[in-house]
């Protein structure tokens, strides 16, 4: 397998990570930031799952007709991580609602401006 196709997944992950992080720092809108954060996290999930893939393997559910399975451990880890991600997002959204209620805005610059 060539370098290109062998590492393509990981490079895609890198790109997604950067886009996600870029949205977080670049965008002033809090919701947008959270979307960026989620993309950032998802990129890491993709990375883990890619690591777990075995060429020619199948889903890790025991069955007599298969002998090669993909690695189940990353799946487990990412299940956990997804849950953590949604928990974080939910909490953050709750914060956003409160921020909107007390600042009247969800734009970073507005909020910073108000507390000067």
């Amino acid at each position, binding site marked *: 397998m060539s370098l290109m196709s062998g590492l393509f997944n990981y490079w895609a992950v890198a790109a997604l990570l950067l886009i996600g992080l870029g949205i977080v720092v670049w965008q002033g809108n809090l919701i947008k930031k959270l979307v960026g954060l989620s993309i950032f996290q998802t990129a890491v999930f993709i990375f883990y799952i890619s*690591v777990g893939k075995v060429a020619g393997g199948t889903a890790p559910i025991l069955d007599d007709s298969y002998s090669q399975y993909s690695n189940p451990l990353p799946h487990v880890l990412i299940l956990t991580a997804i849950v953590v991600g949604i928990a974080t997002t939910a909490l953050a959204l709750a*914060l956003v609602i409160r921020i909107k209620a007390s600042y009247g805005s969800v734009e970073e610059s507005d909020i910073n401006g108000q507390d000067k």
Partner: protein
Amino acid sequence: MFSHLAILQVVVPLMGAPACFMLGKARLTWLMSLLISVVTCAISIGLLLQVYQQGPISYALGGWQAPWGIEYRIDIINAYMLLIVSAMGALVLLAAKDTALTDIDEHRRPLFYVAYLLCLAGLLGIAATGDAFNVFVFLEISSLSMYCLIALNKDRRALWAAFRYLIVGTIGATFILIGIGYLYMMTGTLNMQDLAQRLPAIADNNAVISAYAFIMVGVGLKLALFPLHYWLPNAYTHAPNLVTAFLAATATKVAVYLVIRFNFFVFSPSWADFIQLGNHVLLILGSVAVLWASWIAIRQTDIKRLLAYSSVAQIGYMVMGIGMSSLLSLQASLLHLFNHALMKGGLFLVLATIALRLGSVDTSQLRGLAQRMPLTFWAFVIGGLSLIGMPATAGFISKWYLVQAAIEQQSWLLVAVVLAGSALAAIYVWKVVEVFWFTDKNTASNTRHLSQPQVPVTMSIAMWLLIIANVYFGIDTRLPVTLSEMGAQLLSGAS
């Protein structure tokens, strides 16, 4: 039951939280959570004794041996951290009687205790586990509960501070996750000990080096290591007063622990050049943090913010100790973990007491405090002296070791940094003391604020326990010195 102390340490507060969640009444919840935290603290003492007498404990969760299952591995450093965190947790909770939480809306107070216990459980989980991914899970438990603890303050700025912390914290945690992912990819294991055995063989691999970088940046964000500290002053300033006390005494300490664990145990300077490089970077960042953050602290007018910057500086000391990576310096770091928890916990409790009594910690209200609340004032002075590092206080001991470590390496610049940090600390502490000490003619007769609620007895007890501990552990240093020495030996033995 004694063989299960390791897991009970974490599970007791972890299960206690949902139990408290169902109680509903603030007073009841407080009593319950206090009971839980005291039990937790007792467990940590038992655990420490066990480790001290019999050496490291390995506890296989679910009966599955590591590296297949998750392992709790308690060596002397873990036990030491667990003791610090659980003791500080119990003490601050003792102060946090429901009537003391005036900066939190009344109907939210029961949830404060639940979140507090969750946070405690999360921090203890980080300190107890021997599994890298488990670190991430518990890091998130503690982080999420921390965000909501901070946001509990009535002040709207708390919301914004919590949100920013959430963003930064999540990025940090995800960085750690990337790092762990790289390590897992290269070794196929998540167990720290197993990692430590397998990594030396692939020490020069790009992915391993990147993993180290990601984990360090991630932990650095949590640690508020200069220059990644921007979230901390806001979070500390706007969090409810008692939350600040709790966070200052525990959260950053656990992050320091993680740095130590990864720098000297999972990775190790003995086989990886990049760790040595990393340690140099830490040393430089730590030194800059000490000087720069102290300097900023001097210019603050809000006392909570001032102490928050001081925390950034004090973290710098610990990181310096890690960066020098000698036996003495590691001991100094571990000692300072303990001592700084005592002083900052104590000082923030003093501030909480003042805020409760006067309804604010605004400088203009605090003039002449020495006359109105003399005992509290003296408590602040003692805590402040410990922060400066006066002899016969806890702070002196850690400075003593740190300076010695620097002298041992003949690095006079570092000696100068540590001492200059102390001198700057003297300035910012004294700035506050001066405000308290001198009476302003305009506010001298202004005593209307004393009509505020009485400070609960438990709060005063907790405050004085911490303040006295600052003096006690400056004089009778056997406990922290012995433990940190054992810890440092363990670390340098591993490296």
